[in-house]
């Protein structure tokens, strides 16, 4: 199989909002580490569109206001995920599962759960459907989102092609 050029030898990396925020809070060298992580592997991180939207419109002076995600996209080491296709049954199902898992663990109605958490799983499925993508790695600082994505993909038989990573540990390991 020819691997997609923006993947890490076939592995697509999906990154959540909190990872960018955690990089910013840890100091500018972590952004450099994040960029280097992508460049060393000649790949681009994929972010759901909702993540991109969350990182916009932040109050100036806050950490996320300094997150250069637009520049990262322009520079090519981060890319926006495709629009989510809700007519794809697997995409819709994994998103529902993530919302359900988070609603249960946080004791909230499912309607109150942010769609961005669910989008991580939806984007992961869409990436797995693309030619040249063998597996997917989702990095998030949200404990419940990570659990939800893991369960949702396992339930669809995709667990063997998906890994979830604790975003704080990932950022700690950047240099």
């Amino acid at each position, binding site marked *: 199989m020819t691997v997609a050029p923006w993947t890490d030898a076939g592995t697509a990396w999906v990154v959540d909002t909190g990872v960018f925020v955690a990089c910013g809070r840890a100091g500018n060298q972590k952004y450099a580490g994040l960029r280097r992580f992508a460049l060393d592997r000649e790949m681009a991180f994929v972010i759901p569109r909702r993540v991109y939207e969350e990182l916009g419109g932040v*109050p100036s002076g806050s950490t996320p206001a300094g997150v250069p995600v637009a520049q990262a996209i322009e520079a090519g080491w981060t890319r926006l995920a495709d629009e989510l296709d809700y007519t794809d049954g697997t995409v819709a199902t994994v998103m529902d599962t993530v919302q359900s898992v988070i609603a249960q663990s946080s004791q909230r109605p499912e309607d109150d759960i942010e769609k961005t958490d669910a989008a991580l799983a939806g984007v992961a499925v869409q990436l797995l459907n693309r030619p040249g993508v063998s597996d997917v790695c989702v990095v998030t600082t949200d404990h419940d989102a990570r659990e939800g994505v893991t369960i949702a993909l396992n339930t669809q038989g995709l667990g063997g092609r998906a890994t979830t990573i604790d975003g704080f540990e990932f950022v700690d390991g950047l240099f």
Partner: protein
Amino acid sequence: MATSTDDPARAVDGLVSVARLLDEPRLARVYTHTLRAGPVTVDDLVAELDLPRTTAYADTGTLVDLGLLDRDDSQKTHRFTAEPIHLTATLDGDTYTVTPTLVAAVGQTATDDDLELLVERHGLGTLAAALTYAVPYAEGRLSERVAARELDVQMAFGIAALQALRSLLAETRAFDPYVDEITARIDSSGSTDSSTEP
């Protein structure tokens, strides 16, 4: 502060003292460092908090007057210690217990852009409420976005504030014996009450 005796005057004086501490991040930093590392000297505070010596003298004097620091003047170099604050305020049914972690968070606003902005834009009450969500979030009992949404601030900014408090809690657990009293009551109906446990 010592454990309670039947002394209403002391309770009111304590309330006023803690209010002052919550209003002045520099005093909050001096109190927090003394609680964490005490007994400390003025030299220690100057070195650790990067304070001018005159400021460190003035602040320790203020905090002793407020009853928040104890001064041991039995030796030539005075040493300061602090006891963990535990102050429960109830107003028309809304309850909050101030513990050293909230004081530490106020102190952190002097050096953390996100916490400074949170208080500047939304007030001390929002910082205190954020802490009640940060505790279950840091323990993995509340989703990052669910917690951030409760703060009613821009999502990524809310996540940044929660991550700041998560780091803070990792430190304050060592010297705040009341940290477990700071937690949002999460019930199965989906509503959350950010008052602390009574």
